[in-house]
């Protein structure tokens, strides 16, 4: 379906690179700028790492959805955000994005601006 892309992966650190590749490619296709796509790549990596460190059983589901002017990254199966030492993962994610919803137990939603004309 145009405007939405999903990926499901095991909660396994070896798949963090897969999640990153997917998120960057999907974000570009949906009209997200390179700089913001790079931030989403970091978020994807952090969330896969978080699922592994939180001992989540998997799978991790990543979805990118395009709405006019906005792209939303939703990642479920991540567990509660672990404040990995020495970096607060929560603070890191909140500093990267204006619209971050880390409140839910097992799902994170991040909204970023995108061009009005998604390419997907």
């Amino acid at each position, binding site marked *: 379906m145009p405007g939405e*892309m*999903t*990926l*499901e*992966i095991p909660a*396994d*650190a*070896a*798949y*963090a*690179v*897969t999640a*990153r*590749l*997917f998120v960057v490619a*999907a974000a570009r296709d949906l009209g997200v700028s390179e700089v913001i796509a*790079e931030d989403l*790549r*970091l978020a994807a*990596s*952090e969330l*896969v*790492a978080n699922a*592994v*460190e939180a001992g989540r059983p998997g799978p991790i589901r990543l979805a990118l959805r395009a709405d006019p002017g906005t792209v939303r990254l939703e990642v479920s199966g991540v567990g509660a955000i672990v404040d*990995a*030492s*020495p*970096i607060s*993962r929560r603070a*890191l994610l909140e*500093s*990267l994005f204006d619209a971050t919803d880390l409140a839910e137990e097992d799902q994170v939603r991040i909204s970023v601006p995108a061009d009005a004309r998604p390419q997907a």
Partner: protein
Amino acid sequence: MSNEDVEPARAELTIEARTMGDRTVLSVRGELDLYTAPALRDRVLVAADEGQRRLVIDLSGVPFMDSSGLGVIVACLKRLRESGGDLALVTAPGSPPSKLLSLTGLDRAIPTSSTPDDALR
């Protein structure tokens, strides 16, 4: 992209060590994340055990790093300082590792420069 049986992409990290003056420079190539960062930690611990306590970690060949990579770097810094050593970093200006170090303020805690030669001064 299909949801079925996704194979992991290959995540490889290579670390080359060379001696410059009284320092050991570890040049890292590859992405640093939860999966690959332990290899860097292990390599630094080997160097520390061999008595190389003044290390430079060159991240200019690292196109991506997350907080797992940062965690390993900070753990290495602590380990080296405990044994009277120190750690400096090399990052390409504007690269993802450089941005993450700046975003987290760790570039103020760890000497960071843009070339190995500068790191040795």
